[in-house]
């Protein structure tokens, strides 16, 4: 196995090992942290499909993260208050079932990404960054000013949603759910990168003119990537809301978009396991440095600066060295 492969394996194993050790030592808080890393990494895996494979610097992915969060919050709040979402033309009830919530989150995230992407992808470069940011902010302010679901204060869900056959209130079981979804997303993203679609998408990042010349539309490739990316990030948002049993406009804020991007940059842009490394490092810093100083973001900023200036490949790049071209 190559060095990068070993590092990926270590990163992948790190989460269940940490959670397992915490279980033995009876440290539920650590399990919750590991769960948080898995969920944030999942959001990063989603963004990485757009950013790493497609080269699409989206500063609006909190929109999809938040949409997933609100999908969970809205469905669960109706279920806990026993009021249907709507009665006419047909009855839609709330739900406390995770699989149903995930499905709704994924579809809502995909549709939002389709709409936002269809408009944003007509621009490139800094305009694309600004437009995605603007869409994210629109949703943020909409959530703040929409009183039905808590407005600025957000929505609390009293009991975590259920998964058939599992006790989701048990931290280790909820961790297992989040970790399995992360593992599936990593597997899927890996397949995607090596697929025919992945070949064309990554070519469009390197040279759009080349892709057009072989008769493929970069716009369509990017749009599909953006939709998949938004759907995965929305799934992470639904899990994140379930972890906290709370959703608020903060999930839609541009700071959230920035954080998801920071996971990727810290871990290594375009690296499959980059978001796992980045999210783990981020949460670690938050809890180690955050405990030492309220100004831990300053240190995070310094670290980011160092990575961008000296270690473009992020953490994984620094450890694995330049990846050899394969096949």
């Amino acid at each position: 196995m190559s060095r990068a492969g070993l590092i990926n394996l270590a990163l992948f194993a790190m989460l269940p090992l940490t959670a397992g050790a915490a279980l033995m030592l009876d440290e539920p808080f650590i399990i919750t942290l590991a769960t948080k890393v898995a969920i944030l990494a999942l959001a990063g895996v989603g963004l990485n499909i757009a950013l790493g494979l497609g080269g699409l610097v989206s500063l609006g992915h909190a929109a999809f993260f938040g949409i997933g969060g609100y999908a969970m919050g809205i469905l669960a709040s109706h279920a806990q208050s026993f009021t249907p979402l709507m009665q006419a033309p047909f009855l839609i009830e709330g739900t406390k079932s995770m699989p149903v919530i995930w499905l709704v989150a994924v579809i809502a995230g995909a549709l939002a990404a389709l709409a936002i992407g269809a408009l944003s992808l007509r621009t490139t470069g800094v305009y694309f960054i600004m437009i995605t940011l603007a869409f994210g902010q629109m949703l943020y302010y909409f959530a703040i000013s929409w009183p039905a679901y808590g407005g600025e204060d957000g929505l609390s869900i009293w009991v975590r949603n259920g998964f058939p056959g599992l006790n989701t209130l048990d931290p280790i079981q909820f961790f297992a759910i989040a970790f399995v979804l992360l593992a599936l997303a990593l597997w899927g993203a890996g397949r995607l990168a090596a697929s025919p679609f992945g070949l064309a998408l990554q070519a469009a990042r390197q040279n759009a003119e080349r892709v057009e010349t072989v008769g493929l539309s970069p716009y369509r490739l990017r749009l599909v990537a953006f939709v998949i990316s938004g759907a995965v990030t929305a799934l992470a948002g639904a899990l994140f809301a379930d972890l906290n049993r709370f959703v608020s406009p903060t999930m839609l804020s541009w700071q959230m978009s920035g954080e998801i991007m920071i996971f990727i940059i810290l871990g290594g842009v375009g690296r499959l396991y980059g978001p796992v490394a980045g999210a783990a490092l981020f949460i670690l810093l938050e809890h180690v440095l955050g405990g030492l100083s309220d100004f831990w973001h300053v240190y995070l900023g310094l670290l980011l600066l160092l990575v961008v200036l000296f270690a473009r490949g992020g953490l994984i790049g620094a450890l694995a060295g330049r990846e050899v071209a394969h096949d």
Partner: protein
Amino acid sequence: MTEPLLRTENLQKSFGALRATDDVSLDLRPGEIHALIGPNGAGKSTLIKQIAGGLAPDAGRVVFDGQDVTALSTVARARAGLGRTFQISALAMEYTVLQNAMLGALGQAGSVWRFFRPVMGDSALRLRAEQALERVGLETLVTQRTAELSHGQRRLLEVAVALTLRPRAFLMDEPMAGLGTDGSQTLTAFLDDLRREAPILLVEHDMDAVFALADRISVLVYGRIIATGTAAEIRANKEVREAYLGEEAGV
């Protein structure tokens, strides 16, 4: 005379005050190599771009296989069968040589909406890509990263990618540049045969290659075609000698 496969009708393109394409009408007939020559900055690449898409003319039409394609995108024109190579290589530089050729085969097959199976395991695409690379003599470099290729090798890869598209007409912008004498001669022999598969509109500065290959030559100066004819006619043309060929005409 056979019906041309491709023709431009009174194409015009200006960049500010500069007339880069000035009333250009030319055609490409089945089975021929039509060379487009002219000094630097004459507007050859600009013309190719308007034919392949990516640059809209101010006036005039591009007609391919009886269909007006002037309003079509680059993607649609490529699908219709225009295979272009670039003067300044437009390749996916992080990819291997094989991956670039696979991309062409994938575009031609149109089977890009597949998300799970590894593309490198698609033996039909791979075979087509490898065959194209072999035809231009790049078969020993398949695993090489494109960024590490020499200038000339990149030109050959451009040609190989165009081959994977199985186009109905080739538009080649200086494929010989950077190849060296041996490379030019090999490619010249290859293009000589290739015209039987699809006609070639060939922009080239290598006059040995042009006079050896071209069925017809058009000379572009300041955006205008000043002469079109066989190699012998062009050699003998006084205006062409003054404007462009100069001492090269004696070669």
